[in-house]
């Protein structure tokens, strides 16, 4: 069970990132919860300055763009 957060203040790219992760998780049959985190204070807590950023099980793995499918698959399957 993966606990995934997409950090970002509601920009179009953040929504896309969350959707992409959800889609890939379903395809790969990985159980995952995907939450969008828009609170500025929380985003600051992860030390993120470029959104969208992705946190997997409390570990920051990506920042600044929509991640590639290969990256996402990697996080889901690790």
């Amino acid at each position, binding site marked *: 069970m993966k606990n995934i957060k997409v950090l*970002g*203040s509601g*920009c179009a*790219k953040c929504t896309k990132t969350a959707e992409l992760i959800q889609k890939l998780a379903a395809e790969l049959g990985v159980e995952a919860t995907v939450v969008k985190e828009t609170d*500025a*204070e929380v*985003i*600051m807590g992860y*030390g*993120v*300055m*470029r*959104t969208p950023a992705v946190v997997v099980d409390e570990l920051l793995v990506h920042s*600044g*763009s929509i991640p590639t499918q290969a990256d996402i698959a990697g996080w889901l399957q690790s």
Partner: protein
Amino acid sequence: MFEIFTRLANWLIYDLAGLSAETKMGQSLHFFVEDTSKIFVLLVVMIYLIALLRASLNVERVRDFLAGKHRGAGYVMGAGFGAVTPFCSCSSIPVFLGFTSAGIPVGITMAFLLTSPLINEVAVLLLLSLLGWKFTIVYILVGMAVGIAGGFFLDSIRAERWLQSFAAKALEQGRKNSPVGGSAVASMSMTERHQFARDETLEIFGRVWKWVIIGVGLGAALHGFVPDGWIETHLGSGQWWTVPAAVGVGIPLYSNATGVIPVMESLITNGLPIGTTLAFCMSTVAASFPEFILLKQVMQWRLLAILFVMLLFAFTLIGWIFNFIFPVL
């Protein structure tokens, strides 16, 4: 070198569509085709080249560089980095907080954030191709000056007093900790740079092409449909009150530099004084209602109000100064 675009427009509008160069419609469409085709080609080429050069520059490195810098130099460098660092305005809050929690003074952070939308490679390119290099230099200097002076002013009134409490705490915390050690900088191979530049070109172009069309379209409409001399007769003598009025209208309006520069060109050729034009256009780019609403997350109302008044004042001053000196030059 740019003649090819004039010919393209000639062929498309006058030959193919059969419109006459004497009609307003023909002139407007010609202007539209010539400018959009020219701007699109230049944009793709220039964004790619510039992205190659700055592939390894990002906000994290800028933060590490600015942290712990002397204030005086900090404002100039904050504004300078604001001009050259790529970053999407949707990231301005995380960037604000990232800088703040590294202990960088609010004024230096704001110098960065104010200059960033005003000056970027797309804006400079548009200015060069539409308004010439002299105007471009003036624009860059004014944009930097707004960031530097604005940042200096905010620190001198101790603006950090009016941050939201969590942001103020982060700043306090950041000041105590010694500046973050430089984030690891991987050197980039040419292939990686190419990849970055290609993605960057696609992304920036994907974001700005509609603004170019809107901007040039508005410009074309102004060229063609506002009666010749209307602007000149009514606003051309640069009455003092036209400048604050233009800024007051411009600040709440949102546009980015890409959309507004073609409009600027049109306003100037239609006889609007240069100071009034600069004041109006820069104020639409530098600030907007949506942005103030975003900033509310990290600033109290009082600081937002101060920021608004500061910008109103700064752009009005710029407008007056340029209306005054340009006729003299």
